[in-house]
């Protein structure tokens, strides 16, 4: 199985967050935390991204955008929700326009709690996301292999 753990490219999307988590996400890329040593690149392009990192909750306006960005990402892909707002809706939960956490729209793989989430926690969340990223590929490969061998038997 191909090892793809060393190159996770992140797509960062700001839902309706207060920007606290976004600043912490950017802090991960600064010299102090330097997420690039794990091969993490903050790309702005969903077509080139592997991990979808979302901060802030989902409201009725960005719902469609989040779904579209998720669909534009090629498989295997992982979703990491950063901050309590992205996990559950946080302090904005009862607002009239907030639908709740990211999992109300797309499946979330890793929840990183905190308000704001600390850079250490974000990098830990990404590291867990990377493991899932590799698992996804392996599962897909195994499934394809099984299908192929099943076809071979029936033929």
């Amino acid at each position, binding site marked *: 199985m191909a090892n793809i753990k060393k190159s996770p490219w992140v797509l960062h999307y700001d839902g309706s967050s207060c920007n606290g988590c976004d600043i912490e996400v950017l802090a991960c890329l600064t010299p102090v935390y330097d997420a690039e*040593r794990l*091969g993490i690149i903050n790309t702005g392009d969903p077509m*080139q991204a592997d991990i979808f990192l979302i901060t802030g909750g989902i409201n009725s306006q960005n719902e469609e955008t989040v779904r579209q960005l998720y669909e534009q990402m090629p498989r295997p892909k992982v979703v990491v929700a950063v901050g309590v707002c992205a996990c559950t809706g946080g302090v904005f939960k009862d607002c009239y326009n907030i639908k709740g956490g990211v999992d109300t729209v797309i499946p979330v793989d890793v929840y990183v709690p905190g308000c704001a989430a600390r850079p250490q926690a974000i990098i830990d969340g990404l590291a867990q996301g990377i493991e899932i990223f590799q698992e996804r590929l392996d599962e897909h490969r195994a499934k394809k292999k099984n299908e192929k061998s099943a076809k071979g038997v029936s033929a």
Partner: protein
Amino acid sequence: MKTGIILMIAYVLLAPFIGGFLEGLDRKISARMQRRVGPPVLQPFYDVKKLLNKQTISVMTAQTFLLITYMVLMVLTGAMFFYGTDILMCFFVMSTAATFLYFASVVTSSPYSSIGAQRELIQMMAYEPAVLLTCVGFYLAAGTFNVSEIASHDMSYILQLPGFFIAFVFILTIKMRKSPFDVSTSHHAHQELIKGITTEMGSKNLAIFQITEWYENVFVMGVVGLFFINSSITSIIGAIAAILVVYFLEVLIDNSSARVKWADMLKISWIVTLFSAGVNLIILMIIR
């Protein structure tokens, strides 16, 4: 002739590895300049490996074909150069390759990649005069466009063509997509055009683009080496040292400057070309 064939095969087989390794060094040195630890030196290879394992989504199926054509033409450029044929012909084939990259980007009709592609054309306009003048310089000094004859002269041409060398190194910044001239696409995250010319390239297509960049970098570094190489074997060491110095200089410029507007890029590169290569040209024509 025999060494030409060996060099050509070596280029086709080894250039992606050399190019990828140089890019890895580039990223490591960049990180150290920013006081970061930085990714491993083999990071570019990990990236390409991952890209090859991802699902292929392409907006237009023609894009893959156009990108493969871009790659084949770029490999041909380098192969011709290292075989030792006409240097002018090499640069013409390189321009054709760049045109296919332009088509691969505009074919998707995405606004970001279209603007990126238009900027790529402006970049070509900016570096093409210096590239052509370099060929003219070699012709005036050596009396031939033939790479193998230029390389087997008993004196390095850098002594006769320092102005052309400065112009060529200057436009290398454009060719290698380094700041301040990375207007069409940037190696660094987040710019106003998302990823510019590569916005609509994902997974395998981006891997093809990346590998072609490595071929291209090794080719242009070969041209840098051509300025230093002569008939003696020891000049190869000098040429390699010069290539490494030039590469380091590009990384340094990349990390110490911000992107300029396209109009400034055009002006600055033409002025540098005109002054350094032009003055060198006049002097060369007088002393001949």
